[in-house]
């Protein structure tokens, strides 16, 4: 490194190749181009053409791969599906990658998932098929049985334009029977089924079968900040383009020292700007390796969510407290996106339609922001300053999200309305939170996404409802006030009129169900 250049980055930084495990081998990638995705690397460099590109934006699933990561205790490998088109290559450092070739290349027979798809005629043109294979493979590894509803969720990120899905769903429902009727869930049982063993041993929930892969993955573990320089400028620290610190402290000092740094969490937003707009970020700083940021801390008062916590991680926690949100969260992106996307990213991208925001606003969430070693805590409601503009200052980042625990006698609902039920961006997203106190007074919080340049509380409407008796008349009047309070835009997702109308109707739905709980639920 050039000693004359300002050198405030953590001392331990040195250039390293991206190292990951693929088919039982350690792969070191030294040469790759800036902005390369895993998909491009697989297809162009490794000539593994089984993984396809259908959209390059995380929306079709043709590129689905399975990633493995060491569990926290380092004793097992956790698998998840991911979209290779959005997976920025250096983020693979320390992970295990499965592609469709991993299933069949060495083994003479087909994997049960593949066999089942063949038997059920689950492919026509076959272009989507590797993606479905990988989604089902992940399920196969993680469960010993499945059901229709679960399949819908697992396959929510996979488009097939040919089959109409029935055959694929059937293949999923019956895939377990193609290895054996007995899948060893407990390792080292006496009556091992060799067929099933063979398939389970690739990776999976039972640790002892994974010794080799575990050992390899452990060899990928880094203790210091991982750094990747732009290919052509390897010696110049100002030309660093990717850093993956291991601690929040290191992250804080990098962000402080490098105003041009962009935080990279799941990269589901950043990835799209790379593949679609060719945005070149001078320096990406990956938060996904920082253990402290991947923690969820639950105390009596609040749930504190680290900024590297993925949606798949946090959703079960939130659901255990608010089971009524289950349907809502199922409609949040697709499973592979939820597996990598973070709650922090959803907040910081400052999209007017981030699905978690209305909910978090209603729950009075706060953001713990950090600059260097100092913190400030900001109510989420003060975070958004304007269209895609936040209160984050230079050198500052989001460390955690603080969500208060559930209040007593509270009603909560969050609704998403979009053209398609699954894997779509909201036309309108709404959240409602109603509390009663002992004196049977009520207070409501209402927040919307898609109704303004930022996700926003409907304070005038709230005030009106809080000052009136809860009855149909109040609801109808509140809907009128709501109409005045927002002037949404028209775009290809929905017209302004539709947004206004639905925003009111959702308020109606929520209050009507609270006031008249005996009427049948009004959700389709």
């Amino acid at each position, binding site marked *: 490194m050039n000693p004359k250049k300002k050198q405030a980055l953590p001392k331990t930084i040195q250039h390293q190749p991206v190292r990951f495990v693929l088919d039982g081998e350690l792969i070191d990638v030294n040469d790759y181009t800036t902005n390369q995705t895993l998909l491009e690397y697989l297809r162009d460099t490794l000539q593994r053409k089984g993984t396809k590109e259908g*959209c390059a934006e995380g929306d079709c699933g043709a590129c689905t791969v399975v990633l493995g990561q060491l569990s926290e205790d380092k004793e097992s490998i956790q698998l998840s599906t991911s979209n290779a088109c959005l997976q920025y290559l250096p983020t693979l450092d320390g992970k295990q990658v499965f592609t469709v070739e991993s299933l069949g290349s060495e083994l003479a027979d087909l994997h049960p998932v593949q066999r089942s798809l063949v038997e059920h005629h689950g492919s026509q043109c076959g272009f989507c098929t590797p993606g479905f294979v990988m989604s089902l493979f992940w399920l196969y590894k993680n469960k010993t049985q499945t059901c229709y509803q679960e399949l819908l969720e697992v396959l929510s990120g996979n488009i097939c334009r040919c089959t109409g899905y029935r*055959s694929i769903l059937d293949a999923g429902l019956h895939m377990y029977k193609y290895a054996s009727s007995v899948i060893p869930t407990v390792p080292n049982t006496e009556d091992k089924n060799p067929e099933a063993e063979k398939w389970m041993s690739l990776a999976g929930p039972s640790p002892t079968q994974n010794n080799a892969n575990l050992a390899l993955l452990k060899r990928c573990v880094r203790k210091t900040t991982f750094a990747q320089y732009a290919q052509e400028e390897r010696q110049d620290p100002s030309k660093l383009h990717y850093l993956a610190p291991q601690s929040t402290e290191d992250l804080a000092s990098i962000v402080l020292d490098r105003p041009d740094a962009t935080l990279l969490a799941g990269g589901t937003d950043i990835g799209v700007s790379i593949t679609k707009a060719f945005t070149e970020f001078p320096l990406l700083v990956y938060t996904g390796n920082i253990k402290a940021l991947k923690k969820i801390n639950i105390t009596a008062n609040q749930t504190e969510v680290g900024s590297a916590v993925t949606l798949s991680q946090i959703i079960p926690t939130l659901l255990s407290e608010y089971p009524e949100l289950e349907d809502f969260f199922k409609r949040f992106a697709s499973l592979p996106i939820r597996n990598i996307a973070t709650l922090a990213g959803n907040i910081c991208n400052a999209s007017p339609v981030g699905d978690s925001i209305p909910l978090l606003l209603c729950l009075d969430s706060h953001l713990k922001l950090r600059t260097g070693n100092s913190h400030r805590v900001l109510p989420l409601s003060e975070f958004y300053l304007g269209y895609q503009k936040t209160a984050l200052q230079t050198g500052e980042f989001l460390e955690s999200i603080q969500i208060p625990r559930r209040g007593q006698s509270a009603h909560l609902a969050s609704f998403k309305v979009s053209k398609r039920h699954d894997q779509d961006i909201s036309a309108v997203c709404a959240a409602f939170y109603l509390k009663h106190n002992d004196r049977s007074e009520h207070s409501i919080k209402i927040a919307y996404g898609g109704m303004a340049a930022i996700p926003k509380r409907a304070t005038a409407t709230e005030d009106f409802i809080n000052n009136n008796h809860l009855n149909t008349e109040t609801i109808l009047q509140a809907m009128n006030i709501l109409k005045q309070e927002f002037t949404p835009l028209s775009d290809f997702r929905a017209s302004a009129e539709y947004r206004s109308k639905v925003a009111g109707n959702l308020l109606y739905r929520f209050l009507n169900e609270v006031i008249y709980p005996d009427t049948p639920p009004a959700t389709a």
Partner: protein
Amino acid sequence: MKTETQNSHIGETLGHDSAILHVRGSARFTDDIREPRDILHAAIGLSEYAHATLVQVDLEKVRQAPGVIAVITAKDIPGANNFGAVLADDPILADTLVEYHGQAIFAVAATSANAARKAVLSASINYQDLPAILTARAAAEAHSYILPTEKLDSGDSQSAIDSACHQLSGEVNLGGQDQFYMEGQIAIATPEEQGAMQIYSSTQHPSEVQHIVAQALNIQSKDVTIICRRMGGGFGGKESQPSQFAALAAILAQKTKRPVKLRLDRDTDMRVTGKRHDFNIRYTVGFDKLGLIEGIEFKFSARCGMSADLSGAINDRTMFHCDNAYYLPNISIQSYRCKTNTVSNTAFRGFGGPQGMFAIEYVIDEIARYLNKDPLSIRRKNFYGIKNRNITPYQQKIRDNVIWRIVSELQTTSDYQQRKQDIAEFNANSRFQKRGIALTPVKFGISFTALHLNQAGALVHIYQDGSIHLNHGGTEMGQGLFTKVAQVVAEEFQVRPDLIKITATDTSKVPNTSATAASSGSDLNGKAAQQAALIIKARLIDFAADKYDIHTSEVIFKDSRVYIGDQSLPFEDLINQAYMARISLSSTGFYRTPKIHFDRTTFTGNPFYYFSYGAAVSEVLVDTLTGEHRLLRTDILHDCGNSLNPALDIGQIEGGFMQGVGWLTSEELCFSDQGELETHAPSTYKVPLCSDTPEDFRVNILRHNPNKENTIYRSKAVGEPPLMLGLSVFFAIKDAISSIANSALQAPATPESVLNTIKQNHLS
């Protein structure tokens, strides 16, 4: 013995020939072919105006961009700057005028795909804006037509409507649809010696690509070879569109003397390529107290876009299908083919037929609402008769009507009547959730309406070891055509289908082929391959009869063996003997569809060899506060004649149905006021997902209904007709909200479209 041997491979539920390759990820698509070291990657620069003259196209920065090797504009095209197949009105690259937002103006070849795509963005183009017509309605008002208006009059619609007991008229808009094949458009052109060009193209129409490329390069067809092993979906979107991209790759390849790959990214693909025509439909209908239609008039305005492309035949098919399964003795159809400053719309599964069927189904539904009757009763009232009431508006007599049978069976098996009652009860007790059900029929005419396209060729070789090489002009896009044609050949020789190698469609093997379209793939190519096989088989029989000195009728192929009188020998042994005796073991086959004729001047004749039928019942649940819906259950009964392969046919039925559902519910093409397509990727354009399929999905093939015509093993075409089964979902949604709707439901029935039709005040 003979009867037993028949049809051992026909009607077999054989898997797709590439299924194992598909699941392994080793089925090679065009982009998966290993690239030569010196390959270049191309990208195209698109117009940012819907209608403008090009004042100045400055590509200096593009040329200077990293990795760029060549840049071409219209002036660099050595031959014809056209990829329009019917009229020469589709420039490969716009020269001085752009006519839609997204039209290609120039192309770049660079060392990587990203370099090419990035370079394209640095162009600086000066436009002189011109007024743009964007919608069919606006075009019709401005009399902006790409092709002459067509009229069809049968009977006297005017007086029939006037004298009818009831009249209704209305207007409805029907959206377009992107094919959204999962594999985007792609071509790889490799220059060969003597100026020849070899092209891998993802195309349903290799011969057309060949001709267009030859004309663009100013060489002859003999010097251009097009190869396509498989497509990752086509759906009509790879019928006329791929020639533009193959031509661009070829021009760049010729210029750089290097192989060039042009693979469109999804956004470019959706911006640049044509889609299903969206329609404005106006109707007037007269009917009696029971809903019997006495006279009807349709005015169809289709958005064709900036060029003719296949719009003529597509709109003709709309006219041929706006009767669907109904007898309309007094009908007047006007079909306006509107020229707009939008991408030129093109073929999509159904090819105009779905729009025609949508129109008549809409009218039937409106009649039912008006008379307050079950729409099914109105449908039944108007069905074509078997012995009479069986002449179509274009004067073709229907001889194979099974719609009565299908609808009756389906009505029973789907428990339609009972569910209809249950739904009424449910709706009476539910304020914000409404259920709806609809049973809609399909009758679809099979044949290309352009007579000359109804021909096909095939090529069969048998090698000395008895293995068989099969080639034909049809292309494989997932529909299983290769499997079906292999079944036919296996059947003729009575050998296992896996003895047959199905090879890539290749213009140097079978020439002058038609597009694999109009559902005709197996009908045409199956027959052609059968003929090739029969020619070889006849030679083998003659040879065996001669050699073993018995009558030819005693030579029988069965179970991979050949029985010659009392003895038998393995198939491959006979082949070997035939080879030694210098018998030709290779043959071409050819087929042309008989009986069809059509007079365009009077719009009468027999444009269709036969009809395919089907019906679907769908039940939905609509949320009347948001307009969203869920599809609860669908029952389908579909006519495949004697199915060649029920597994593949069921796949076509289910896939077609869901594509129809997407078209009519979630798939919405939105254009900005400037004519820019705003929904050009799956993030914004929503095709159905798993969760959009009905959990309760019962699909059956109509049994014991061999094709009345002598098609290949009496089967019926199945590619397109099932798409129109999706109409049942649209009309189920319409049914669900019928009691609270106060305006016409427009298609697609997006949540917004549904909510728009619901009365404002249903809350209080």
